[in-house]
């Protein structure tokens, strides 16, 4: 009755207010999100498609793409496992130091990424605490791929856990308990009951985590050492080209990074669209 009434009743001023709000939101989005995104592609293509392709078709660019994908491919699954484990622990168990764990999960959000990078340099760098020992055993972490992975993991650690904890706390453990009493072992309980319950939040957390892993600049910049073709991810490659006054090149690579983000977004939308009915059927409680 309320929905029908509000749909029928609105007087002119109210409808005007509706319209104004929607327009304001759209204008805001256009100004702060779409315009810059469009500018990236416009700048990249300013000297024509040929120059654009030439800027991309360089070993540096390909290496950067490969490295970015590699770092994300290692950091995201590890954070997925950690995020689920941490969310499970926080949501399902009472233990000493639970508040501390919650605070630690948030640490990467509150600490500047640059500091995170510096900490790894301090720990594993040539003059760092473990540097000499690592060097003696022929292990390179800082200014090499392992350092990039570590820094990225640090920065992206909270995404999955933070997405899952409130959901798992709200859902409670009753369904898992029911599964146990019905004879399920731990794995069956997790894969048949827990995972289906959290899969959308998990997917969302992983997508956010992935987006950040591919786009991270600060922490990665500190531990990278900027060795072109070896330790430059896409964001670092962009910065280097920009600093070399290669604007078309910088924006061309930037457009690649933006494209990766758009692909991620499209994947999420497609999944939501594909399973939209199912989402709607299960969203309201279900018990």
């Amino acid at each position, binding site marked *: 009755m309320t929905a029908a009434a509000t749909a029928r009743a609105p007087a002119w001023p109210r409808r005007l207010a509706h319209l104004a709000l929607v327009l304001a939101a759209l204008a805001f989005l256009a100004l702060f999100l779409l315009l810059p995104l469009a500018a990236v592609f416009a700048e990249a293509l300013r000297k024509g498609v040929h120059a654009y392709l030439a800027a991309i078709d360089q070993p540096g660019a390909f290496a950067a793409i490969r490295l970015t994908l590699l770092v994300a491919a290692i950091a995201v699954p590890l954070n997925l496992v950690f995020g689920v484990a941490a969310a499970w622990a926080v949501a399902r168990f009472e233990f000493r130091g639970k508040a501390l764990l919650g605070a630690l999960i948030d640490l990467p959000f509150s600490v500047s990424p640059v500091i995170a990078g510096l900490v790894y340099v301090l720990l594993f760098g040539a003059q760092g605490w473990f540097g000499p020992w690592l060097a003696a055993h022929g292990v390179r972490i800082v200014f090499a791929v392992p350092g990039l992975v570590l820094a990225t993991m640090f920065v992206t650690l909270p995404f999955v856990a933070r997405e899952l904890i409130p959901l798992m706390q709200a859902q409670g453990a009753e369904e898992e308990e029911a*599964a146990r*009493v*019905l*004879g399920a072992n731990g794995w069956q309980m997790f894969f048949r009951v827990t995972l289906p319950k959290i899969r959308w939040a998990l997917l969302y957390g992983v997508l956010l985590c992935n987006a950040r892993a591919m786009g991270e600049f600060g922490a990665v910049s500190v531990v990278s050492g900027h060795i072109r073709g070896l330790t430059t991810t896409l964001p670092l490659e962009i910065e280097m080209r920009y600093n070399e006054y290669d604007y078309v090149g910088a924006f061309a690579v930037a457009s690649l990074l933006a494209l990766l983000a758009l692909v991620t977004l499209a994947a999420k939308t497609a999944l939501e669209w594909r399973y939209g009915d199912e989402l709607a059927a299960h969203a309201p409680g279900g018990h």
Partner: protein
Amino acid sequence: MTLELSRLSRRFADFAALDDVSLDIAPGEFLALLGPSGSGKTTLLRILAGLDHPDAGSVRLDGRDFLATPARSRKVGLVFQHYALFRHLTVAENVAFGLRVRPWRARPKRAEIAARVEALLQRVQLEGLGRRYPAQLSGGQRQRVALARALAVEPGLLLLDEPFGALDAQVRVALRRWLRELHEDLGLTTVFVTHDQEEALELADRVAVMNRGRIEQIGAPGTVYQDPATPFVCEFIGKVNRIPLAREDGMLGAAGWTPGRDPWRGGQARATAYVRPEHLALGVAGDRPGWQAQVRHVYLAGSVAHLELDVQALAQTLEADVASEDLARLGLRPGLGLRVAPRRAVVFPAGSGGDRWVWQADEAVVAV
């Protein structure tokens, strides 16, 4: 398979959920754990299900240690208060869950699982709803899916946590009768938790009344109601009038009324008489012991009418129940003055060192 629970204790932080609880559950029995919230009844149920563990005590099944068996191997059917159905699975998949998670040697064939699910859905009167999701069912239907799911694993013990707590009154009564019939059909040992005394009295073979982590009394519904062992049981089960007695002229009594005898032989200076509303006689003759009262309210509740009676001598309001057809016959209406007296009372001594006393009037106390 007799289940022997012996000296179970369970503490949460500084709160004793179970405090030295012992109890035997006979095969095929329908047992109610009745108590207010926080009395430990759900904790006891969870311990039986294997979802919680006692700090001390043992549970033995035919002499074997039941607590050493993990939850998944206990063959216990548990129905949660809020059902805990798997929301991402259909009704049929929910019911089949317990069979599908078995190791493959023990797992029935696909067709056999389907047949059993179908039979169970029929048993709980949900045939044809197997492809629905829990969110598309009513509360009573979800409840029965939860029951079918629990029965699918052919449990030796069925546990129900507030099975009717989340349902509306009509569905609740219907489902209650249905559950009782189902129990008679299956003969399955069943333990259910409830805070609703009516439910416990109507359904169970035996009722264990719990309070603050202890069992106050365990017995048949009639015994627990008619012959309560403690003041708590008196007050928790059914309605009751609480009348303080003191020594008057060498005899325990209240405002001129006395039970006439003293089982403690003067050993108690004070006591409390608990009188059920249906045990208060109305229209007592003037030469008999009793109290002058005035009808304050008459609440007609279907077949029974509840009366509120002001008794000035006791400075309290007593409750009395009469059959509603007697209302007109006795001319009971607000404002009417009449004499009342207990016909039956359970009397507890105030001090220690005395047993409770079930008092019955010597002769029919006139009138009603």
